[in-house]
């Protein structure tokens, strides 16, 4: 099977400046050796708690952040080795939608100009053609002419997120990175945006990388899921398998911690002790061993690799 998007051994360390006098440099290990692939038309959900590096992955793929090492392929072009001109070409095919709709749109620009920005940057469309195109894009997301001249502050969060999606669609991308697109929205509006995304995927055969901390949303929209902990993927596989039968102790705890809006839903709760360690001092060995309930001696020394347990279902744990 060939992937549309493939990421190999991606690493991103952020240098941490400590004081004026100390020369010693620490690193925030945001993404540590992550590999995955996404087929065409598929949605890969990337879940994890805050600070686990999921947003960094999305931004590194877009080359908004320089990777420390590793490769990312899009349509068999290595994104990290392309010259700037080629990269601009490729970028048209990849779009990004951000978490916070209130700050991802420039408050001093009209909706018309916001949506037209990708078009004016990459194409020569002008005047009435441009206007028609903007209208068409707005109609995809269920908005119309009356919204074109307004400024972002005149819209609600859900509408703003629709505008962001419309902008992302402007250049007919084939791949979209959705960075927590619904976490700033209310549930009823979230449902609208999720449905919209599903519809668009069907209409344009889009491929999604869906980044979120909300497991219920990820389960709802993704075909496959990757669970991250402290910069690493600890478990990855088809959505159904992962949610029915999580293998990694962290995945188990995470799933059991999701509050289910059903009072009769009785589940055994796995409560983890302590907090996520700082990404500056990652524990030796398996990075989860400090909070793991199934800790073995080997976990303190050797870091487990992702291994295929069932077909397509990989897990990084010494238990398996």
């Amino acid at each position: 099977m060939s992937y549309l998007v493939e990421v190999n051994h991606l690493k991103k360390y952020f240098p941490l400046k400590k004081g004026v006098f100390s020369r010693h440099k620490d690193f925030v290990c945001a993404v540590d050796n992550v590999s995955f692939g996404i087929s065409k038309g598929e949605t890969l959900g990337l879940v994890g708690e805050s600070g686990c590096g999921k947003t960094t992955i999305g931004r590194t793929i877009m080359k908004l952040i320089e990777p420390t090492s590793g490769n990312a392929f899009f349509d068999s072009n290595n994104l990290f080795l392309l010259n700037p001109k080629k990269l601009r070409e490729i970028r048209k095919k990849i779009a990004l939608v951000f978490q916070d709709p209130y700050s991802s749109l420039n408050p001093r620009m009209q909706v018309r100009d916001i949506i037209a920005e990708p078009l004016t940057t990459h194409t020569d469309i002008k005047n009435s053609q441009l206007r028609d195109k903007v209208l068409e894009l707005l109609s995809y997301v269920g908005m119309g002419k009356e919204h074109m001249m307004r400024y972002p502050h005149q819209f609600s969060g859900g509408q703003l997120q629709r505008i962001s999606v419309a902008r992302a669609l402007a250049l007919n991308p084939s791949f979209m990175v959705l960075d927590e697109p619904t976490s700033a929205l209310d549930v009823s509006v979230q449902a609208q945006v999720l449905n919209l995304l599903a519809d668009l995927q069907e209409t344009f055969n889009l491929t999604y990388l869906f980044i979120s901390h909300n497991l219920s949303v990820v389960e709802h929209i993704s075909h496959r899921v990757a669970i991250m902990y402290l910069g690493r993927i600890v478990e990855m596989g088809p959505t159904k398998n992962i949610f029915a039968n999580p293998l990694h102790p962290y995945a188990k705890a995470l799933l059991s911690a999701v509050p289910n809006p059903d009072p009769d839903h009785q589940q055994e709760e796995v409560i983890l002790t302590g907090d996520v360690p700082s990404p500056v001092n990652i524990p030796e060995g398996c990075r989860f061993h400090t909070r793991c309930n199934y800790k073995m001696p080997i976990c303190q020394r050797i870091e487990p690799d992702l291994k295929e347990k069932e077909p397509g279902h990989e897990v990084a744990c010494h238990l398996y």
Partner: protein
Amino acid sequence: MDNVTSEVSQTGRFERVYYYLYLMRKNRLLMLGLCIGMILFLTALFAPWIATHPEDAYGSLNMKEKLRPPGADHFMGTDNYGRDIFSRVVIGTRKSLSIGIGIVLIALIIGLPLGLIAGYYGGKIDELLMRTCDGFLSFPQLLLPIVIGGVFGSSMKINMISLAIVWWPWYARLVRSQVLLVREQLYVMAAKSIGVKDRIIIVRHILANSISPVLVQVSLDLGYAILASASLSFIGIGAKPPAAEWGLMISEARPFFLNFWWTTTFPGLAIFVSVFAFNMLGDGLKEVLDPKVR
């Protein structure tokens, strides 16, 4: 408290403009500053027609009228050469305003782009620029102009340039700090992800969203620049006699002002009022533009 405090309006393209105009009208400070500022500019523009004895500003002596107190002929009295102080103060407006604007403009022209670049790109350039700024800012503002003036002799032009040299770091720092805030906004990253060119990002997204504190600073600084250049003239660097310059007029009156109060009081008031006006203007603008102070 949810969205109680965000005053989102759903109607009208110019709603925001109206809103600012409304706040501006409501702000007495701003309006007062604006009025005095306008009067100052008009005075500067029509100075030769307003002054009752315009020739006095350019060094004509009239020893018969020496040190007259304020009266019908001389609203603010005369100085030790019999020159009409009112006329000299009025004509001095030109010099003070133009030097103030000059200083701020030069400082802005140097500081704004440097701050933008340092803030946007960061790294080594940023480090170098900020250390330079720190260096400048940790000394009294008047020190370097005094040294320069003391060494090169005094002239208004040198005065202006040397003040601009110590002034630009303030702008560089202000712009940089703003850019650092705006740069982290997601719309900048969104523009980058679309592939918009750096130049356009800087102008359309970053500059447009970080300019309002700079505007505030400019209006405040117009006043401070006038004050600083007057101070230099007072020390004896800058304007040369017989020029009609406020700081110089006060300095010239020093030997005898204890007996002839009007010789220093009025030029000083002129400085005070103009600096005060620009201060009010800047402070009012800040209240209008910055929701936090409101």
